[in-house]
């Protein structure tokens, strides 16, 4: 069924959750936040993603509830559109095309038909203006919203730097050291400015602004950590402000509580501060929030607060300043050194997370599963301090063992190799062996011997170091009875080759051979006897990557040199099978197939080549993958093999290729068309199912249950009742939003039909299918309905005619079938 679609590169989650202020739904049960091009809805109670709204082509910059309808959401994006969503169903209602990059969005209750947005000023760079966008209320999915009127010029692009005052009376905007307030009714503009630095050398620059919801009071945050509360600002001269000072560095965001009695502020200290009644003396703190606070938002009923952090986390906080929940996305560190590794157990992507931690990131739910503290040392936030870095990670085939390497660059290098064993009881990794200075110099590569079938065979780890040796580590039984563990790791073999630096190591699929590259040479060793079997080289290039072929191609060894060659050696003949000129950066074999993906870098953009080692011709070439350099790639096995139409993309059937660019963007390939990725209907059900049980629903459910029990006892309308609940047609009718439903006159017969009990029990799919087909037909020709009724009259003579049925048209046939299925037993009751 799937049409051969083009292979598309898509961002696959892991996007910033702190792109804009998160928004609570009106009942504070859901939290909506932007995530790259998407808008995500999380359940506040369970932290689960309830629904994902996809449709924007560029990152979403602002979301706001529709003040007129609290079940709708406006979102703005850099693609120049404002979209209106029904977020409970995740359905796009309308798209307004503005035509400018939208950098922020504000929606006010007092302005029914317009929203406010920040757009770049045409013709000027780095100059932005606040405009009101008139949203016309006409039917249709897409419409132009070109009616813009400029409210403020020269505003800051950040959405935090503009705020609307009580009941939309005024708008306050800050930029650099200037505050401007515009009163809509009086059409008056007041400007206030501060000196760039104050007497004590603090930075007076404004960083954010918030307006009191009930009173005329503006709170502004400053670069030196001060918060100023401005009042009386309708007088250009007699304005006044008071100062609150706790933060020692930039105030990142401010928010007033619903009644305005308290003010929340956050900054790089990772502490949420609650100020009461604008007093400097009374304040509460919620410390240790992990990382700098980017945005603060408050639910409209005031029960929850939410802070977005720079490490891609959203924290939900109770109104009494108790930590409640946290939603952790992919942590984007400064530098991913471990590469992308797939945890065989959870299929999660494993990479550097918080400093010294390993994050397990679930690709399906775009959430961090957990974070494993590897370094186990307190991280000290200080510039210029040599921190311990996690540099290498490897999992054994079944995910039982995890090996990590950490290093600290001091006067002399500090290295530590740690081996972790998976503890079934605690469901996490436990440190088994710690080896100080496993090599004299940096460890360049590390791999486990895959022992898939032979579980009793002890695992084996190989590390290659710049100190010109590779070391083999094996498990030994501990003889010391007092030791807590029964097994530990120790070095079994040290190999070297002509005193060259070992750069890569790799086991063959069956684990019998180990390939270690020493600068220009690849050496192949027997893993049982540790004999050097053979060597390959392709001078003058040094070996950058090596890997063995899999399955049918396991006799091949692939190597890429930094001189721009990709070579394939035959292990049986010990000869070069083929070579191609390609500047390969990443060489990644698929563990479930013979395919090997190679990412090359050609002057300006990256290209992907997928090939099988047994044929020198690539299966798939994808040029212009992205503009950035690709750092790492990983094949992640799919849970269910995907049905892929095109021969060309068969390599994506069993596993999916993910890659990480040097701008920390996680990408993948999708063969689905963009439309297909939109609004899968299953999400609607997810909303309902994730609802918590209310006492009312419990009561009602109990009642229903009882009723059905009674029905069973009576044996009367059981079938009817059952049918009523399960019919997809009814479901379709009840759960489809009203505006996308066809006319009631058309729906009526289907609905009635569905209520009637049929003789044979149809499966749900069939019914759905039929209904759908019927609706299509009805749209085609409304006149046909009359024909049907006419034909119904003709039915009786037809029965007498017998064999003439073959002459009936398809539609008639179906009609007929339906009628036959109908149960006319109810007539008997008359």
């Amino acid at each position, binding site marked *: 069924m799937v049409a051969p679609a083009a292979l598309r590169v898509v961002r696959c989650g892991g996007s910033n959750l702190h792109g804009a202020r998160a928004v609570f739904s009106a009942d504070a049960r859901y939290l909506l936040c932007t995530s790259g091009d998407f808008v995500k809805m999380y359940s506040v109670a369970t932290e689960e993603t309830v629904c994902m709204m996809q449709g924007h082509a560029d990152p979403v910059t602002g979301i706001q509830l529709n003040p007129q309808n609290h079940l709708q959401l406006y979102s703005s994006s850099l693609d120049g559109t404002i979209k209106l969503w029904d977020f409970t169903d995740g359905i796009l209602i309308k798209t307004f095309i503005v035509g400018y990059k939208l950098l922020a969005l504000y929606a006010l209750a007092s302005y029914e038909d317009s929203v406010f947005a920040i757009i770049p000023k045409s013709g000027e760079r780095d100059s932005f203006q606040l405009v009101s966008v008139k949203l016309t209320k006409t039917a249709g999915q897409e419409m132009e919203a070109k009616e813009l009127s400029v409210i403020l010029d020269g505003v800051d692009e950040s959405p935090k730097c503009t705020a609307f005052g*009580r009941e939309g*009376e005024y708008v306050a905007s800050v930029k650099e050291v200037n505050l401007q307030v515009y*009163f809509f009714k009086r059409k008056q503009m007041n400007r206030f400015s501060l000196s760039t630095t104050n007497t004590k050398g603090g930075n007076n620059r404004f960083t954010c602004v918030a307006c009191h919801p*009930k*009173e*005329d009071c503006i709170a502004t945050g400053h670069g030196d950590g001060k918060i100023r509360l401005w*009042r*009386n600002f*309708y*007088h250009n*001269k*007699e*304005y*006044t*402000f*008071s*100062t609150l000072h706790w933060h*020692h560095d930039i105030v990142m965001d401010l928010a007033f509580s619903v009644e305005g009695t308290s003010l929340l502020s956050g900054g790089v200290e990772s502490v949420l501060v609650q100020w009461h*009644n*604008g*007093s*400097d*003396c*009374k304040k509460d703190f919620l410390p240790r929030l992990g990382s700098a606070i980017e945005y603060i938002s408050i639910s409209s009923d005031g029960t929850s607060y939410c802070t977005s952090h720079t490490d891609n986390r959203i924290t939900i906080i109770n109104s009494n300043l108790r930590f409640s929940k946290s939603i952790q996305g992919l942590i984007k560190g400064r530098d991913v050194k471990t590469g992308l590794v797939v945890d065989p157990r959870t299929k999660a992507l494993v990479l550097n997370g918080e400093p010294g931690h390993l994050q397990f990131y679930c690709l399906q739910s775009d959430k961090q599963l957990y974070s494993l503290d590897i370094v186990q040392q307190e991280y000290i936030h200080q510039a210029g301090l040599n921190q311990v870095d996690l540099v290498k990670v490897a999992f054994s085939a079944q995910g039982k063992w995890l090996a990590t390497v950490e290093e600290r660059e001091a006067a002399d290098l500090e290295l530590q190799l740690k081996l972790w064993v998976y503890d079934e009881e605690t469901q996490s990794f436990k440190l088994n062996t710690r080896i100080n200075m496993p090599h004299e110099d940096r460890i360049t590569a590390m791999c486990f011997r895959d022992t898939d079938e032979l579980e009793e065979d002890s695992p084996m780890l190989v590390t290659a170091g710049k100190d010109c040796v590779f070391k083999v580590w094996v498990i030994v039984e501990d003889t010391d009875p007092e030791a807590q563990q029964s097994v530990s790791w120790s070095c079994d073999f040290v190999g070297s080759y002509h005193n060259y630096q070992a750069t890569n190591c790799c086991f063959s699929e069956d684990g019998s051979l180990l390939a270690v590259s020493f600068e220009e040479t690849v050496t192949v060793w027997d893993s049982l006897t540790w004999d050097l079997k053979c060597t390959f080289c392709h001078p003058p290039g040094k070996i950058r990557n090596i890997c063995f072929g899999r399955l049918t191609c396991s006799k091949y060894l692939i190597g890429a040199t930094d001189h721009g060659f990709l070579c394939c050696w035959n292990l049986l003949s010990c000869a070069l099978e083929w070579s191609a000129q390609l500047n390969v950066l990443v060489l990644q074999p698929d563990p479930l197939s013979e395919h090997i993906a190679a990412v090359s870098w050609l002057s300006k953009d990256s290209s992907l080549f997928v090939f099988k080692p047994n044929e020198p011709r690539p299966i798939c070439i994808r040029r212009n993958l992205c503009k950035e350099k690709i750092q790492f790639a990983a094949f992640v096995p799919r849970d269910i093999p995907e049905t892929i139409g095109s021969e060309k993309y068969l390599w994506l059937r069993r596993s999916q290729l993910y890659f990480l660019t040097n701008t920390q963007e996680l990408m993948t390939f999708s063969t689905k068309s963009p439309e297909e990725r939109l609004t899968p209907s299953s999400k609607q059900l997810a909303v309902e199912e994730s609802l918590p049980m209310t006492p009312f629903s419990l009561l009602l459910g109990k009642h229903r249950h009882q009723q059905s029990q009674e029905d069973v006892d009576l044996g009367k309308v059981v079938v009817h009742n059952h049918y009523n609940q399960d019919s997809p047609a009814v479901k379709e009718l009840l759960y489809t939003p009203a505006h996308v439903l066809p006319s009631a006159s058309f729906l009526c017969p289907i609905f009635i039909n569905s209520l009637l009990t049929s003789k044979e029990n149809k499966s749900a799919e069939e019914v759905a299918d039929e209904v759908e087909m019927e609706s299509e037909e009805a749209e085609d020709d409304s006149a046909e309905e009359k024909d049907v009724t006419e034909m119904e009259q003709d039915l009786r003579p037809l029965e007498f005619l017998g064999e003439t049925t073959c002459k009936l048209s398809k539609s008639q046939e179906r009609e007929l079938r339906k009628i036959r299925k109908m149960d006319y037993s109810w007539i008997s009751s008359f």
Partner: protein
Amino acid sequence: MGEFEVHRVRFFSYVPAGVRCLAYHRRADRLALARTDGAVEVYNFAANYFQEKAIPGHEARSVEALCWAAGDRLFGAGLGGHVSEYDLERLRVKRSADGFGGPIWSMAANAGGTQLAIGCEDGSVKLFRVVPDGVQFERSLERQQGRILCLSWHPSETHIAAGSLDLLHVFDVSSGRTVQRIMVNYHVQKLKKRECVVWSIGFLSSGTVVSSDSFGRVQFWDWERGTLLESHTVSNSAVLSLAVSEKEDSIVVGTSAGATYQFQLLPVKMGSQDKHWVRTKPFQHHTHDVRAVAHSPTALISGGLDAQLVIRPLMEKMQKKGYEAALRKFTFPHRRLVSCARKARLLLFQFSQHLELWRLGSTNETGKDGEVLPVCRVPEHLVQLKSKGPEHIYCSCVSPCGSWIAYSTASRFHLYRVQYEGDSISIKKVTNVPKLLLPAYQLQCSADSSSLFVASDRGSVHMLQLLEPGGCKHLHTLRPPSGTLEAVYLLASSADGNWLAAASGDWEIHIYNLKRFKHHCTVPTYSCAVTALAIHPVTNNLVIAYSDQQLFEFGIPEKQYTAWSRTVQNCGLHKAWLERDSPITHIAFNPKKPSHILLHDVYMFCVLDKSLPLPDDSASLMNQSTLKQLPETARKRQLHAFKICKKFQPLLFADLLDENCLVMVERPLMDIKTQLPPPIQQKKFGT
């Protein structure tokens, strides 16, 4: 500027007394200030905040409250239990009346200035009527438990609010009954059962009572219902003082942590009548308790135990930014406390109750500009003269030869003869001093040390002849022909002994001919206070500095302003000169360079060279450092009359000893701070 050998004197261990209370007089635009040692000062805001009057303190007469009543009359009350009226012309206490209620903690005048209410130790509030000859006890209001620490009249004069320990009272004036009692420590947890001291109170016309207490709160009460309207916790330490603006839209409070805060009555929403009090601006100008605050229409005024008077103009009330809107801090008196015996190289320091005579150190080395020379003889503390009795010293002087020391208190005049025999020193009191009308407001010796001029009240100056070996004789009393009530507070005698100039409190300067003991002439009146006077030793021109920083030169023989003075008035002085904060307190001359005038205020020392052109506003006034870097020819073009040195700060006294030797008396603020008790511990971020 020329090079000088400078005696940088830092051994004058003067510690000004802390500010105890303030009273602002709106109509006269004057501020009365009382210090903890009982001294009372009056600052004239119209005359550039000049300290116009200073009444020295008295050991037994502490001042707890000051108020202006019945026009321009100043009343004070203190722990001595007396209500006294100050004589601002003769600078002393005019009359006192006993309050009969023990120590008086507070005093307030009603809006009309006809009645004074005092709060006493015994818990009584007493009303005094202001009568032409002092105050008259009227009646006592209902007595309460505990001392009355603060008082405030309702603007309609019908009620009085009084603050005590843990309690607020509201009295009905006509009946004398307590009509409301409010517990202020009601909201405090029982655990920290401390006394809540209501330090200060304000009664607004709307019926709101504002109280500030020792828990750091400023609270607004509805007195009729006795309910709390608003409560603002301002500080962790006590809020000691409070003042309400005349329009009742702004309140200033001072805390014991040295901070002052402004509260403003602001509308909740634009255009609505609903208003509330909002704490707006914090100011941290003091290091110690802010015991007194006052609210002028355009400025917040605060005085603290660190002896500073701070005047912080409100930006929004100012027409334009600039000089008017600048913050002003006053720590030192605008009077001379040091006198110098030029020939003997002695310095006489005046403290509140004693005098110190020091001999300057000397060196026999020379060095380049900016070098510190090693001292071969260290400065020597020769004599300490303790004044007897509780009265503080009004003025003192040492003769140029160093052999006579004179000082005066409120009731006594002392003259000493000092004799130096090698290293030993003997001091002898001159016994038969003539009975003069005391106190003396200024003492000045003639250049040849033969006579002593004593400035007295009613514009008169007494001339005493100093006789060897130790005696004196009253020669003559010089009186202005027109007659005045104000006392003379500045004197200047000419080097040749012919002329004497005397400035009195009404800002008139009279010049007397000493040869004929006759009034010579009067300097045309200028509408500002005189801050310093001196007669040029060569030309006999009188140089006058006014508090608005204007400089005049008056030719005494010619009885008119000199040509240079007219040029100065025509061209105008440099803007930066006029915008200085502190007045010129001393003028000296260099006899070898007649065109030079040496001036100083607290922050600078200036050599004014009359032979050079005056700077215009485009040139930099303080150009000494840039001049140094310029080549000789360019330097010539840039030269102007004002040569200013700011190296010595704060400067209490500067004088020329001989043609290239200067003495500078500094009193670094840090040295004063170390003498003060430690301030309240406050956590500073990053320490």
